[in-house]
């Protein structure tokens, strides 16, 4: 017997995950809850409805965060259903304008922001040999947000990689990993990016490719194989790499008997936590700092609430995305922490943008680079 997840969620469920859906909690509307989206997916599939602009709006009002799946006993993968429908709506030419433009920008500049491709790695290449071709070693896959929107993350990551090991190489001709393309329905374009990145990463000859971005990590390691482009190279998120080198003694964090006087809370990026199961490494890295008192938010780890920027939500619905981000900031400040650390440039970009100075927001790379010398 083949079970149909669209029917299980959209037709058969009593809406058991609705109370955790970050979008439904903002818009308070049945239509945008996971149940509503799956019911629409069901009717679209059966051609019982045509699916116009409003249908597309609803289907794009999802961060694909996957918290609903955590609260779903049969584990219906709503984000995958949503992405399937988005691909079809994009073909039907009813997808939101911002999503269409995203594709155009990615086609021309190979990043979702439309920033010049030739500037992507320029800052990092200064003082560094371009595309070192030695066999083995670590390559740093910078990602679009670190490259263009959060250069301090790229800089911090580079510093740590230099300090922790035998240096690193950059990937010649790195393109967007394809995460924003996949999540918004640009499947063919995402495959083009996957094929390209596989070639350039493998050509670099590295053993390990490290990403700053949770989305890059998920896409390179989980989605590329599904798309037919499995990487031969091992992929690690920076948090995993950091914990590895700390454990190996390659990155030393001095022990101290000082009190835990730095209250820190950690935001699990959906792409790193729920989608890839990496919860402990970033926490272990933070706990390596003797003065860090890590305080969990009410919703953390598998239950972590999304920052609201993923799945094209920030792109297509900036105001909605902002409100969701502010909700997460409220939760972070309720812990009493003075610092909010995350492990994704996209999350950091969002949370910093909505924090209104209520809490300091760092990416893990920035926190580690900043405190490696000053904070034992």
């Amino acid at each position: 017997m083949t079970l149909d997840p669209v029917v299980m969620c959209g037709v058969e469920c009593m809406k058991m995950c609705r109370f955790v859906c970050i979008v439904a909690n903002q818009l308070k509307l049945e239509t945008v809850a996971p149940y509503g989206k799956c019911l629409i997916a069901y009717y679209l599939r059966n051609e019982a409805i045509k699916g116009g602009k409003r249908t597309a709006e609803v289907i794009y009002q999802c961060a694909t965060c996957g918290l609903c799946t955590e609260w779903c006993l049969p584990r219906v993968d709503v984000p995958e259903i949503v992405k399937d429908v988005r691909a079809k709506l994009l073909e039907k030419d009813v997808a939101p304008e911002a999503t269409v433009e995203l594709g155009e920008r990615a086609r021309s500049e190979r990043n979702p922001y439309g920033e010049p491709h030739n500037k992507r790695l320029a800052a990092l290449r200064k003082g560094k040999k371009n595309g070192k071709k030695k066999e083995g070693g670590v390559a740093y896959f910078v990602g679009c947000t670190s490259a263009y929107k959060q250069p301090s993350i790229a800089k911090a990551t580079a510093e740590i990689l230099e300090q922790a090991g035998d240096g690193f190489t950059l990937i010649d001709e790195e393109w967007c990993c394809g995460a924003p393309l996949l999540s918004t329905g640009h499947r063919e374009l995402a495959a083009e990016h996957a094929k390209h990145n596989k070639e350039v990463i493998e050509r670099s000859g590295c053993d390990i490719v490290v990403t700053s971005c949770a989305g890059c990590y998920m896409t390179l390691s989980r989605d590329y194989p599904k798309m037919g482009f499995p990487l031969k190279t091992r992929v690690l998120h920076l948090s995993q790499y950091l914990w590895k080198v700390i454990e190996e003694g390659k990155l030393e964090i001095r022990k101290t008997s000082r009190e835990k006087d730095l209250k820190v809370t950690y935001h699990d990026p959906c792409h790193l936590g729920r989608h890839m199961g990496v919860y402990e490494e970033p926490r272990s890295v933070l706990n390596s700092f003797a003065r860090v008192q890590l305080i969990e938010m009410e919703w953390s780890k598998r239950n972590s609430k999304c920052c609201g920027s993923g799945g094209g939500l920030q792109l297509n619905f900036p105001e909605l995305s902002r409100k969701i981000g502010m909700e997460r900031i409220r939760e972070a400040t309720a812990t009493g922490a003075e610092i909010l650390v995350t492990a994704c440039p996209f999350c950091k970009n969002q949370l910093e943008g909505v924090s209104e100075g209520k809490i300091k927001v760092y990416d893990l790379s920035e926190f580690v680079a900043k405190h490696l010398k000053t904070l034992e």
Partner: protein
Amino acid sequence: MSERGAFWRNIVYEEIVGIVGQKNVYCDEADLLCYSRDAWQLTVPWIKGGGELPKPDFIVHPENAEQISEIVKLANRFRIPLIPFGGGAGVCGGTIPVHGGIVVDLKKMDRIVKVDHKSLLVTVQPGILGEVLERELNKMGYTLPHYPASMYCSTVGGFVACRSAGSLSSKYGKIEDMVAGMEVVIPTGEIIRIKPVPRSSTGPDLKQLFIGSEGTLGIITEVTLKIKHLPEERRFKAFIFKNLHSGIESVIKIFRKGVKPCVIRLYDYIDAQFTLKGKAEIPEGGSYLILGFDGSREIVDLEEKIATGICLEEGGVEVSRELAEHWWRHRYDMYYPDAFRSSYSIIADTVDVAAPYDKLEELYWTIKRTVEERNPGVTMMAHFSHFYEDGGSIYMIFFTQQQDHERAVKVYNSVWKDALEACLKVGGTISHHHGVGLVRAGWMHKEHGKAFDILKAIKRALDPNNIMNPGKLGL
């Protein structure tokens, strides 16, 4: 309203926008479809079989009672049905817009208005989800001891409008026992308040008129509820009996001793097998009892001791309390879709009935035998999920696998008819906590007899234009 056409629709739309603003009005096909149903099981084979459901004309998202009042006045002028909507988690079709009209989704009114720490009262807007309220109360050390299966997806307004029950009802009662006061927009658009007082001797209790009115007598816009401190301890016990009778007798004796377990659930033989999944042996025809006790440790100790003694005297065999704790942790699991129910044409539903103890066992056996005899291929099992000093409710569950959706719908309707007929024959009530909606609408006159005329007269007096959720509750 739909047949009045686009011109009429445009006029009404503009008026609604004038009240709540454009951002709070929806009328696209995608939205209307999502409000064309609730969690009534009949809609499942209906949709899977390609059937259409009635759609509303508009969905509105009011932000306060004043806006609702204006919408009600507008609905009166245009004679448009209004369907109040909380979580849409009802299982009786109570929010299905059978005559079209305006769905009034209350989820934007979801604030906790006030917590009265001295009187232990919380005042909330109707659109707050049960689970959200409970979590907020827990942070303050309180609980609304009301855990319906729909906790994650239903609202306080829905609890009150449908007279819901939660897993702890045997000690704390149903929602009607927890409501201290309320604010309602009545069908003429006036906003009335029933103040929260512990007791009153000023005529009939008007709260009880609106509790369970399923949107037919007004729209609840605020509710004051009685809350409790979180219990110091909650502990469970489990027993297996050789038959159903011994289980029921134990429960009666527990009440007679003055013990008030917060949880009393007695499963019949078939349901016990589903619940225990082989983790404890149960003799053929046996029953399985879960008891829960909460409060201060001393009281829990004493209640547990007395109840255990009674169960053992009645021939009960104690099994690991872990089984009962497992049920508590997984108490909402059966409300998720599963592989069994998701296969092509299986249909299942629950008929929640209740009766005093002198009729309780007869009620169970009469419904089970009548349904199974008249509907070959249908299995009926049950657990007695809510017990009180004078009787209890039976959660009769039926399921059947049919060749196609059309046949499934036919058998479904037949089972309901046979079950409710059997219930009334014995003298039980046709619903304990799910409510009436559409599935029991045609049975209200038989349930209440001549007394139903009073309800109809009240409806005519309050809602002369019959705009409030028409067709529901048999009105």
